[in-house]
């Protein structure tokens, strides 16, 4: 199968307009005869559901949480990028496009990335209109700050709660359409399979998480907006319920998986403190605007941070990357921290952290300014660690964070299954091998609000004539039976170990071999180990309770079963890519100074994996750079 990204013709600046001019339209009276299922209610899902409903489609929206307002977009703290050039500092759509493409180490499509930058400015207009209380100057205009990998100020923010505020806007817009009876909302509902009829996505199988009942829903198109899958590492910055199951089920039904191993490790999370830990709390990257990262020059230094004199502090990011300093991109900042920690310079009780210090910023700007900028983050830090970071440096450590990889989508955000779309973090499109800070809220929103509502019509226009699916179709019956069989199988094992036990095992392997740095031998070993974990899981897991009730253990078990298989694909993908690019750092491919070595001649493509009876087959979408020349990414 040849992968066609369906990139429109014309200059980069004209592509999106050229696409819209040519795409098919649907008469408003006909839109209400077409139904769309949206799985997920974060910025991408709620944005898509509410906007499609405004256009007149009949929408059903599903989320596993008790309310759409819990979606994990809520947790993004730092901000959202937009090429508004309000700071008059030389920003433009082109520069934002180039920063994003370069930040992703030239492993994303030019056309998609340009469109992301192009639609960023109207998105800020949109959110302001929806009542998002972005930070403002005294005169009433919007404020910006910087984020990693960028030398202009283009990040908009609402204290340290930007994601929450954007999600509240999206959620309230969603409920506006619930009230208008154009969206039917299904909270506490988890998609457990995709239904494909005659090669087209026509519905889903859902487990009602309260009653345990399996339900079938049919529609003319299905949109997945299910977020990232970094919980495959177990310890991550993600919400505990985040999972890859919807993606994985779609993958098994024929959707290709793009660049599964491209996973971002965030440099500024709180360090792990014990084996029982369930989650690593993220501290916003925005802290690197004013905070300076350092470790002592002396190994195993036992002095308190404040007792270590200035001359004995190694500000290693400023030393290695003088032009970007503490605002080096995430992949680079994480690897640099790992390098120092592995070399024995780590700080904290378990020697697994580095310092993030605000002493100089407080001296320069005053305590009040720092409180205004980051107050709630410092408060959160204190709640969790008991430490006052105004008085001594924070301790931070890298943690699994964002999935650049996801279902492969074309320019229309459609997967390789016609009628199945993937929006937001769950697709692979714009970020390449590394995402820049504050581009995640942006991509999720732009996908949901602006892009999908302008591309889905191109597909649905032809579905007008087709038969509308019904849930008694044999494919629905078959999918529901398969889901039931998996649930019964998990419950029947009745072994001796808990679901969390296997998740910890999987997490250890993934973190060791498929996170910040990878090598061939390690990945080969990891694949074998994960196969072992899979066999052990299916022969020795114990899940109590039954399937016809609210059963959180069963939910976890079903998600983990999919994570185990996804972990295998991630390692397979990382093993296949004999180069270092962005977050994918293969130890065999580095310079003497430890910088990544990209191999454009052989690997300038998006890997798109097809599921073939338990095995994975690689397809390649060659990346063609027509407008920019990929260069060696340097932040020195």
């Amino acid at each position: 199968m040849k992968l066609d990204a369906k990139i429109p013709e014309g200059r980069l600046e004209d592509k999106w307009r050229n696409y819209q001019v040519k795409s098919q339209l649907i008469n408003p009276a006909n839109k209400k005869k077409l139904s769309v299922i949206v799985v997920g209610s974060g910025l991408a899902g709620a944005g898509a559901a509410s906007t499609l409903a405004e256009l007149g489609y009949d929408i059903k929206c599903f989320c596993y949480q008790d309310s759409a307002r819990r979606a994990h977009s809520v947790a993004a703290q730092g901000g959202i990028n937009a090429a508004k050039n309000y700071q008059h500092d030389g920003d433009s759509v082109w520069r934002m496009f180039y920063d994003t493409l370069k930040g992703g180490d030239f492993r994303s499509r030019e056309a998609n990335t340009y469109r992301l930058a192009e639609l960023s400015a109207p998105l800020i207009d949109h959110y302001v209109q929806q009542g998002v209380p972005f930070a403002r100057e005294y005169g009433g205009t919007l404020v910006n700050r910087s984020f990693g990998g960028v030398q202009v100020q283009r990040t908009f923010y609402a204290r340290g709660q930007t994601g929450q505020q954007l999600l509240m806007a999206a959620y309230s817009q969603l409920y506006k359409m619930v009230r208008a009876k154009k969206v039917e909302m299904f909270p506490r509902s988890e998609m457990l399979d995709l239904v494909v009829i005659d090669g087209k996505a026509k519905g889903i199988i859902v487990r009602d998480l309260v009653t345990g009942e399996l339900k079938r829903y049919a529609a003319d198109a299905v949109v997945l907006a299910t977020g990232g899958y970094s919980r495959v590492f177990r310890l991550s910055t993600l919400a505990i319920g985040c999972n890859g199951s919807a993606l994985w089920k779609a993958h098994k039904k024929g959707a290709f998986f793009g660049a599964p191993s491209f996973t971002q490790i965030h440099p500024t999370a709180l360090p792990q403190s014990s084996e029982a830990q369930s989650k690593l709390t993220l501290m916003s990257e925005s802290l690197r605007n004013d905070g300076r990262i350092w470790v002592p020059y002396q190994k195993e230094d036992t002095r308190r941070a404040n007792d270590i004199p200035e001359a004995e502090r190694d500000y290693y990011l400023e030393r290695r990357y003088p032009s970007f300093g503490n605002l080096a991109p995430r992949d680079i900042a994480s690897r640099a921290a790992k390098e120092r920690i592995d070399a024995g310079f780590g700080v904290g009780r378990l020697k697994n952290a580095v310092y993030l210090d605000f002493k100089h910023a407080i001296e320069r700007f005053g305590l009040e300014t720092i409180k205004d900028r980051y107050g709630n983050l410092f408060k959160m830090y204190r709640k969790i660690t008991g430490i006052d970071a105004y008085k001594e440096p924070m301790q931070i450590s890298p943690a699994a964070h964002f999935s650049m990889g996801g279902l492969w989508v074309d320019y229309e955000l459609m997967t390789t299954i016609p009628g199945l779309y993937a929006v937001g973090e769950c697709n692979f499109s714009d970020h390449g091998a590394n995402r820049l800070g504050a581009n995640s809220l942006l991509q999720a929103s732009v996908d949901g609000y602006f892009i999908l509502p302008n591309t889905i019509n191109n597909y649905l226009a032809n579905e007008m004539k087709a038969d509308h699916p019904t849930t008694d179709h044999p494919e629905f019956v078959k999918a529901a039976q398969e889901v039931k069989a998996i649930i019964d199988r998990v419950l029947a094992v009745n072994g001796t170990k808990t679901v969390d036990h296997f998740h910890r095992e999987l997490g250890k392997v993934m973190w060791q071999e498929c996170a910040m740095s990878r090598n061939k031998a390690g990945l080969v070993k990891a694949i074998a180990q994960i196969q072992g974990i899979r066999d052990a899981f299916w022969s020795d897991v114990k899940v109590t309770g039954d399937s016809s009730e609210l059963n959180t253990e069963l939910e976890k078990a079903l998600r983990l079963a999919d994570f185990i298989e996804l972990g295998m694909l991630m390692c397979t993908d990382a093993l296949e890519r004999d180069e270092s690019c962005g977050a994918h750092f293969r130890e065999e491919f580095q310079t003497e100074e430890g910088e990544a070595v990209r191999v454009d001649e052989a690997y300038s493509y998006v890997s798109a994996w097809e599921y073939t009876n338990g095995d994975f087959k690689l397809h390649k979408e060659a990346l063609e750079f027509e407008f920019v020349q990929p260069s060696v990414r340097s932040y020195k």
Partner: protein
Amino acid sequence: MQVTFKIWRQEGPNDKGAIRAYEVDGLTEDMSFLEALDHLNELLVLKNEKVIAFEYDCREGICGQCGVFINGRAHGPLDNMTTCQLHMRSFKDGDTIVIEPWRAASFPVIKDLIVDRSAFDRIIEQGAFISAKTGTAPEANAIPIPKEVSDRAMDAAACIGCGACVATCKNSSAALFTSAKINHLNGLPQGRAEEHKRVAEMTFQMEIEGFGSCTFTGACEVECPEGISVINIAEMNARVTKAKFFG
């Protein structure tokens, strides 16, 4: 560290429910409170018992999904934080810790410690939005909003919808929740067009959901993880009066 958890167990909405005691060993001070419950659940699985159903998602204090009564206080012994932000270092070795679900008629128990807070969604549905369609927005800087106005809106908008305000209120009032949302939107120029309608409809929905009236004890602001002030309720009441005259 060893503690005794006394936990509310209730099979379903129609079950009577009761407190059961569990002695749990092997905890550490670094563990979060919810991790201690995870630990207990793993022990229960190994003893072939059903796990305790409790809610959480982000575990960093922002999604609002977690929330239980701990020793008689919403979200536990400390002020202004979520259950997921509570750590075992706030307890002593040998402590007995009583855990119950939110108690409010408008938040019926689904199972064990999980309650149904969909009443909040229905309040939001009644006007907690700005009726502008995607694609109709003017340039963002076209309407200047002074910093103080924007900051005040942000203070109110910080609500995470956890329901601690309702749970801790002797009247089970949702006034803090509802007022925070009203003041966020009505305080901004974009929200003005629908201000009176919003106030009238949201407060009406709050009443038909069965939430009690506010008698200004201020209990809610002590437990609110975002520290949202009761002044919001006074402001909402003023807006209700204003809506009656001008709405």
